[in-house]
């Protein structure tokens, strides 16, 4: 029963930037423990939707409920966010970056912190003892480290914006595998991507966006027939 209760509800969400409306009334319910792939052309509003869910944008009107809360800050401890820029400090190593962000999430005690960080770096397939600054990593490594940062606080919900872009196929496939395992553990995952084929056999649902609205939701990777 709890598995099908919606963890994210969006109601008539509108986001305007001056004269341009990026989200033109998005209404949807998303249940827990699933992996959603959000697809659409450039300018369809995918990134805006994700950023609004992550509390980085204030909607012009409409409501969002995540895990029962209407203010993002109340549940921010349980959400992980990752975007196309790495959201990491280039001059620090992976370990140092994560140690800092762990602090922000209240993971304070020394040993608990170091263990948690090591575990999360290993889980994304990287070497925790790598002392090189993140700026020197390859794109694939950097994306994986960015994912590690999003996973630090063991969030219930993951919001990922273009996690596979510019990443080599091997790294991307490993990331997909990791995300599938997280979904199986009960996490709810939203992935905005242009590379839908990577998620063809993994995503539970494909959410199609166009022109600021959700135009269809399918189980398979097939663009829905849109009636206007």
């Amino acid at each position: 029963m709890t598995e099908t209760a919606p963890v994210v509800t969006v109601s008539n969400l509108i986001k305007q930037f001056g004269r341009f409306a990026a989200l033109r009334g998005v209404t949807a319910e998303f249940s827990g423990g699933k992996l959603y792939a959000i697809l659409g052309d450039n300018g369809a509003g995918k990134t805006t939707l994700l950023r609004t869910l992550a509390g980085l944008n204030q909607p012009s009107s409409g409501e969002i409920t995540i895990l029962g809360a209407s203010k993002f800050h109340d549940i921010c401890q349980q959400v992980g966010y990752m975007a196309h820029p790495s959201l990491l400090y280039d001059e620090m190593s992976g370990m140092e970056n994560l140690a800092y962000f762990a602090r922000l999430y209240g993971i304070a005690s020394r040993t608990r912190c170091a263990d948690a960080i090591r575990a999360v770096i290993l889980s994304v397939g990287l070497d925790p003892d790598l002392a090189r600054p993140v700026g020197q990593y390859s794109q694939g490594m950097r994306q994986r480290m960015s994912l590690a940062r999003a996973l630090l606080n063991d969030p219930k919900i993951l919001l990922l914006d273009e996690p596979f872009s510019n990443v080599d196929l091997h790294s991307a496939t490993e990331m997909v595998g990791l995300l599938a395992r997280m979904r199986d553990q009960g996490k709810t995952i939203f992935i905005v991507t242009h590379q839908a084929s990577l998620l063809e056999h993994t995503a539970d649902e494909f959410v199609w966006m166009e022109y600021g609205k959700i135009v269809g939701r399918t189980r398979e990777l097939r663009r829905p027939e849109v009636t206007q």
Partner: protein
Amino acid sequence: MTGPTGITRATLLKDLRLEWRSKDAINSMLFFSLLVVVVFSFSFDPTAEESRQIAGGLIWVAFLFAAVVALNQTWAREIRNQVLDAYRVSPAPANSLFIAKTLGNFIFVSVLEALMTPLLIVFYQLRSIGPAWQLLVVAVLGTWALVVNGTFFAAMSLRTRSREIMLPLLLFPISIPALLAMVQSTTAILNGEGARFWIVLLVTYDLVFTTVCLLLFETVLNAE
């Protein structure tokens, strides 16, 4: 150490570490401060007597220029790779970030001032009639005034076009009373006169603006 204080401390240490590692930025700023002092000394070539009258103004204008260059730097790091989003998404409070950034800037600008001061003393043959510890008090209060507003306005400028010119544009007008106080008190102390009014003004200014900046920073941080 948990909670907001721990986060402030962690952020401050992270900034200091990053500053130390990107030595290019520090070196260029140190050199810039040196240049400012030298250029000023070519422009004004006073006798020892005269210099005590104008040194207050010269010193603080030189510090102001160095501070603006430093202030622009520290938020730039948070914009690269959009790291600021990672902070905003976390439960960490906005004020911890503000205090950490302000303290970091304070340390950084103080280092610049400490390096510029001996040069200024040498170039202007400065000898203070009043006690030097009073000058230190003024330096601390004045630097804090510049840095607390500077950090705040630098964060504001992140949301504007022409970010680097917006910082001095916003900072200078509001800093005028504090600048006047800094300059007048420095001049007074150098000449062995009392500076009590100006110091009280600076203390009040620092208290009022630190409080208001703390109250309003969250609005600025989330203004996307």
